[in-house]
């Protein structure tokens, strides 16, 4: 099996993978980073969103071998171990932006990417349109929208791992 090397959450990692191995499988099965979830297998639900070279990507759609040298951030890498939470994580907690928690890592990773693209002052319409690629079955999105707006505001001034991305 061919080997692939990349940086995941600031650490250099290498693994042997099949040509068909998806990034999400590499993260979950090789690296045992199980915070990134699989919800649909067809790039619809967004539970698997991670950051690839600083941009949101659905890790169920990327072949691990195509990511040689890439810089990946997963939900586990958003905050330093024992450090403060990323403002977007904190916003989801404060605004009850999650229930079962399964879609949450993807939601948070997408939300941070929305801020990167659209700035810190997000209106409700923009947030709802930009969440097109993430499905939540629990919350009805009401509190996710509030969380993203609050998290975006709180990210003014630079959150923890933005520089690394």
């Amino acid at each position, binding site marked *: 099996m061919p080997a692939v090397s990349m940086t995941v959450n600031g650490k250099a990692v290498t693994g042997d993978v099949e040509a068909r191995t998806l990034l999400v499988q590499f993260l979950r099965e090789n690296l045992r980073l*199980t915070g990134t*979830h699989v919800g649909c*297998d067809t790039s619809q639900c967004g539970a698997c969103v991670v950051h690839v070279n600083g941009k949101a990507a659905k890790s169920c759609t990327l072949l691990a071998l195509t990511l040689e040298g890439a810089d990946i951030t997963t939900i586990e890498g958003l905050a330093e171990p024992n450090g403060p939470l990323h403002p977007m994580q904190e916003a989801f907690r404060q605004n009850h932006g999650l*229930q079962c*928690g399964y879609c949450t890592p993807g939601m948070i990773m997408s939300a941070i990417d929305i801020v990167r693209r659209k700035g810190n002052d997000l209106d409700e319409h923009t947030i709802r349109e930009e969440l097109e690629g993430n499905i939540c079955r629990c919350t009805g999105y*009401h509190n996710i*929208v509030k969380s993203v707006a609050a998290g975006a505001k709180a990210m003014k001034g630079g959150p923890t791992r933005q520089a690394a991305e």
Partner: protein
Amino acid sequence: MSATGIGAAVRRKEDLRFITGKGQYTDDVIRPGETRAVFVRSPHARAKIKSIDVNEAKKMPGVVAVLTGAELANDKIGNLICGWMIHSKDGSPMKMAPHPALAATSVNHVGDAVAVVIAETKAQGRDAAEKVKVDYEPLPAVVDPGKAQGKGAPQIHEVAPNNTIYQWHLGDQKAVEAAFAQAKHVTRLDLINNRLVPNAIEPRAALAEYDSGTDQLTLWNTSQNPHVARLVIAAFVGMAPEHKLRVIAPDVGGGFGSKIFIYPEEVVCLWASRKVGRPVKWTAERSESFLTDAHGRDHVTHAELALDGNGKILALRAKTIANLGAYMSTFSSSVPTYLYGTLLSGQYDIPQIYCEVDAVYTNTVPVDAYRGAGRPEATFVVERLVEVAAREIGIEPAELRKRNFIKSFPHQTPVIMAYDAGDYNASLKKAMELADVKGIGKRKRESARNGKLRGIGYSTYIEACGIAPSQAVGSLGCGVGLWESAEVRVNPTGSVEVLTGTHAHGQGHETTFAQLVSERLGIPFENVSIVHGDTDKVQFGMGTYGSRSGAVGMSAIVKALDKIEAKAKKVAAHMLEAAEGDIEFKDGKFSVAGTDKTAAWGDVALNAYIAHKFAGQELEPGLKETSFYDPTNFTFPAGCHICEVEVDIETGNTEIVGWTAVDDFGTVINPMIVEGQVHGGIAQGVGQALLEGAVYDKDGQLVTGSLMDYTMPRAHNLPSFNVGLTETKSPSNPLGIKGCGEAGAIAAPAAVINAITDAIGSEQISMPATASAVWSALQRTPAARKAAE
């Protein structure tokens, strides 16, 4: 109210692990040496299995075993069962067909499993599964529930002539006929309650491990009720004795009913793990979820409402065909009967009701409880009938509702239920104010100027929750009791663990249950842990569904806390050298009445364990109590949802522009969590009304078989919700809780359709009211177009 007690919007304990990726869902659990199961599934809706050749598959790389239904039968693994007996009106029992976990002789829906490959990796398993050669003899299938009982329809199961599982009825048919004969007005509707796919975002999964040293099986499972899973798999499937099977339901990513049931895959994983001597894991792909998770709803109904000249409802009758799919799922029989017919009185004083339900087999995925389970179907019938009747008679829909509301309690309906408390006028009035119903005329005119049709729709729903009094459900055919258990363990340092038989998969029990304990014992919220989802830790429990965890599960905790307090007072009496009857307990402190002598909670807990201050022969050391709480009645959450829509005349697209929900859930433990439950329920109800629908073609292929074809509500399909509360406490449990988990899904579909039909001026619209469906309806109602032009 303390900052973390009952009524406080406490932030959730469970969130930290979920927002940092540390949740432990079934697929995240990794066992040493684990293998992966990949199922071989039928591509046919109905076929005979002539032969299965696994030789080539067995030779594929990484394959550990390939197992078939014949081997399962050889090993005497029992069938899956439906645990609620329904009798037909002629007294005959329901016709339950055999449901093996792996089909051996025939398949009855697309996705029915016929074999399983156990392999080192999932990819290897998939490769090998493609090499399993199944020789099928395809047979004609029946898909449409309306045609299942027809002459010449293919007969799916020998035990069920005309594909009829039961012909059930409820109510006094003759009295209803007499009332209809007296009616000044009769409203008649044909309704389809569309078939839904639950689509919890975490796909179902099972991981089974066999320990040959102890002969112990362990199953990690995406379950809403692990003890019931253990009971059924032990006692009916016969996999292992109950005490040799441990079921763990760790973090579960949403259920909505679909994870109540006992499914073939977990049975097969358990069986296979013992056969291959290694852990076996299966995680559904989304396409498997579509083809195997129990679907919801799927009713075809004709309903009629009789009214007198003053708009007073005289009677209601409904005839429903309920599609239960290819096999009877675990609780499928109860959904279109005792969870449906019993709620046809809605919030109204209806003197006579008669309901007939024929449940049928079709060659489709089994249908069972999905959020609301029977009650959304009942609410849709009642609230559509009432709305249409109001329009036909020319009375304001809110006014017609008011005229017929039940106003005194308790109220015995003609369909079993005895409503114990409520104030339906209060929730309607508050909702109408919050929704600014007075301004609707002006808003309609504004919309019309923009080429849009605006409409408003009410749904004054009721549900029966707090499921359920065991004797009552037993008399109706339920195979289990529906009480709940709690064990409260006070540690020597005074911290507390509560073991509950309920299970949380998004509802936030770790937070709300801790709020109750914190308030009751006066100890910090942080000092309370809630333990659930493991049959080795929690002695027994019935799980979470039917909005029962607060009303039943928390009541059990209250009862256990009562015992804890009583015991702790005995310990405190010894410590304070006072009579037990003089000990008072308040805010975490024990005191002797009329003195300044006190003992702190932690000291009493420690003394209970060190047992230095009392004779252990007279008072048992320790501080741990258990309760099994059986409710005295169902609870009856009710409320009013008002939906406002704008319909685009050119495209037929419906936009929900306003949503007001005023619900009466009785006592609210955590308003933040309760509002979140309402939001989520509404979204599922809106999904049913506007977007979702499982579509089969005539041959039984599920056309909407992935999230690319089945439209799930996304953020831009929904508005923000305006949520309010009214409160009448439930007299049927110690906390006065009614339950909130299903309200939104129950209320919403009728509110949406009532709003759209108000907007377009035609009642001829069914769910899902897609843009295409609404546009077509508009073409049939030129008046609506003209009004807006």
